[in-house]
């Protein structure tokens, strides 16, 4: 399935699960119902303007999403990361609880297979806090 077909499929699902008919959404997107139907079936491509209007009718503000993404990208670019350790700390903080516990266990394991003794304190802390993995 191409990305275009996937998008059409998701939009079709959203329309089905939203109040209003396919014709209502076609009107909001300023296209005909048959044109919308052709797009949803993957038989034709939709103009960007109609696409944006259709998403808005479905409660998806494309401009807001792009704005958020731009903000996120620029704040990530401002990070002051210089060493692998800096990267490690940054990436670790971005993980969810399962991810953090998994990575900590992996670090302990990597130390052990590297024949580097793991401080008892580390093991105690991990034993107390590792509740998921």
């Amino acid at each position, binding site marked *: 399935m191409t990305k275009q077909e996937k998008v059409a499929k998701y939009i079709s699902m959203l329309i089905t699960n939203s109040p209003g008919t396919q014709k209502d959404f076609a009107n909001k997107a300023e296209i005909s119902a048959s044109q919308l139907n052709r797009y949803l079936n993957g038989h034709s491509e939709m103009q960007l303007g109609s696409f944006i209007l259709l998403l808005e009718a479905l409660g998806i503000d494309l401009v807001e999403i792009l704005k958020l993404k731009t903000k996120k990208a620029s704040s990530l670019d401002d990070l002051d990361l210089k060493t692998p350790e800096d990267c490690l700390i940054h990436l670790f903080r971005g993980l969810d609880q*399962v991810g953090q516990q998994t990575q900590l*266990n992996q670090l*302990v*394991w990597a130390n052990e297979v590297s024949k580097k003794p793991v401080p008892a304190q580390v093991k105690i802390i991990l034993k107390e806090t590792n*509740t998921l*993995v």
Partner: protein
Amino acid sequence: MSLQNEVTSTQPDPRIQEYLVWYSSSWVVRAVESLVSAKDFDPSAKTIAQRLNITVEQAVESLEALEKLGYIIKKNNTYIKVENVTVINQAVVDTSDLLKIHSNLAPQIMTKLDEESIFTTRILLGSMPLVKKHSHKLIEFLKSLNDEGEQLEHPDVLAVEISIAKISTDVRGVQ
């Protein structure tokens, strides 16, 4: 993601989503699920905890999660596994979700490896269609292992992680 078994789909539970996330991201609940099929399975949380080297709380939570998800049911003071439910494949879960599940679980399995484990790392020639052509052998291997394991009086719980990735890029036609 839709991993919940139909058995419990009519009994909404506020923690279902939490259980699904846990089931998809931790080896603990998977190990308890496997253990339920063992001939010598003892449903006591303490015994499960000792056997899997997990805490009693994790054992209790795992049993609860598996029961709520409909993967196991209580019967005659013990638990039994519901047949044919925990087959997770692309038919029910998106490939990107499957990769997330694998990426969570695979590193956890790695931490259980020691010198006694069976492991191999190979870089070799092939193609993804060839991998798909031969993948049934791996599926048969896993099935045989589990089927015969269920017949053992005192089976171990094993973790298997298989990853095959294409590491080269397609340069056909490039001079």
